[in-house]
């Protein structure tokens, strides 16, 4: 019973691990995070930065 449970947990962990690996490796290999940052996140952030009113002075 215990062995079965352990095997089941291991299988599940292996499966999740494998899915995790495939997902993250795909993200890595296809440069997914950088594409997201470059084409989506930074343009949005830059829009926000450009709209900021900064306290710009020598003092």
């Amino acid at each position, binding site marked *: 019973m215990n062995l079965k449970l352990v095997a089941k947990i291991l299988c599940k962990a292996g499966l999740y691990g494998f899915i995790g690996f495939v997902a993250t490796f795909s993200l*890595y290999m296809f440069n997914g995070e950088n594409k997201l940052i470059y084409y989506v996140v930074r343009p949005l952030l830059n829009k926000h*930065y450009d709209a900021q009113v*900064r306290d710009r002075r020598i003092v």
Partner: protein
Amino acid sequence: MGKLIDFIDDKLKVFDPIWMAENGKGGQRTRYYDRTGVAKWREWRGTKDTLYDYSRWLMNLGAMGLMVAKNPVAVMKGFWEYRWMGSFLGTFMFIDRLFEGYRGWELRVAHMQMFGIVCALTGRIGMTLASDRRLGASDKKANRFIPFDEVIPPLFTTGFPDLVAFPMQTLPEFIICDVDQHIEPYYIDVAESFGLPADVCSRCAAETGVALDDAFPLVGKVLISTNMPCNASEATSMFQRRRVGLPDYAATFAMIHNDEETALPYSSQIMKEMIAFIEEHYDTKWNWKAFFKAAKNMNEQNTYELEKWDYMKTGYTSEVGISETLYKLFEWQATNGTDPRFTKIDRKVMKILRKNYEDRYEPFGGKTRHRAFLWGPSAVYYTDFPTWCQNAWGVAIVLNMDSTMGFNMISTDDPEQAIIDLTRLEQKATMRHMAVGGWDNINAVWEWAHNFNCDMVMMNDNIACKGMLGIHSIMEEQARDLGFHFIFIEHDLEDSRTVSRQNMRDCVNQYMSIVLGEEPLDPTIITFDDSDAY
């Protein structure tokens, strides 16, 4: 397993940019979208190296995730408040650029060192933002910090174990300019909008811009400025002290001369006054025990550094190019004995380097054609320039000027001697003992190049660096007399709009093709547009 890996490598080698370049099927640039610097896919380095690179990517991702998890609100506020924080998102692309073409041991050493930097930096960012008055932190938190100019060795702060070293320009300027070539031009424009001429050093103009744009984190009770390393740096301090508005101490060390009778005693006195100033304002006492402990760390790091140099002189080493430079720069400028993590990394790296030498390991598949010493302040918007030199022309940047700083040992039992040693460390700070500080400091490049068995000297030609421009042709004449290949790499330090990365590449391209008549290793990276890349 080995056979399986060989099988996969054989099948996927067509995606390996090095194989592609060797076989006329493309090269590193093939996998990029034009202009952006965004790769369609990451570099295939063979199964083992790709998996290793992937595992390090995961670890870096984890370190960044940890930073957010520890201080979620402060980090988000930081992203919202500071334009320079947005640029840190380019870190992954930055690391990919730096280590393009790296394989085997050089890839491992590079990543081990980079992980140290990423961990230290994310920790620093998180802690700083969580203590930033501007973002709502209490005075109690903010007042633990000692803001000081980035060119003062942080080792001096270890005498105050309850306080946190904060090299002030590091986050908004000194490091982030390496990651994103478009960030500092924004701050330069801010400074110039107040009438600052465009011909001053762009690094200092950017620092001024950060101050005027009110973009320094607000931490600490005092500000320690310094005259190091150059005129523009001195001048920008005037704006920083006004804008930051904290009691300030100008640590004006000896600018030229390193002699024992005049310069050293004076600078030691400045060091003592600086410490006394902190004691007074933070109502605390300098702790020699804590300082000596950190000094031991520093000494161990420097011992390793000197040993590394011995291997680097032979060429049988995986401590190469920009990986070596960035690590040394960060280790000195931001860590400087204050973080034992770096000593641990050094120990691991040393084991690899010793083995490399025993095995007569040649990095980059032994394709190095020239060994170059890179002198002068480097263009920070093109940090991966040494990587490009190696991949494009087989020119190994054996050592960068910045790597030659601060390698003296610190006394760990004699307070008086320790202050003198600390002062010597300052005299060997960034630029101070290479690009400024008198002719002998610059003239030393030939000896360095000779000792490291280089046949080439690349001279960074920062178009606004008055100290280096002032000896322009003397250096060229010296190179001719001494028989070195010599290339001026024109750049504008932090402003890629003035001299683009391609302009810099062209300086090398022209020399290599016209003067030396050589063919590139990878023709796809000789001329390309990366003007929109981070």
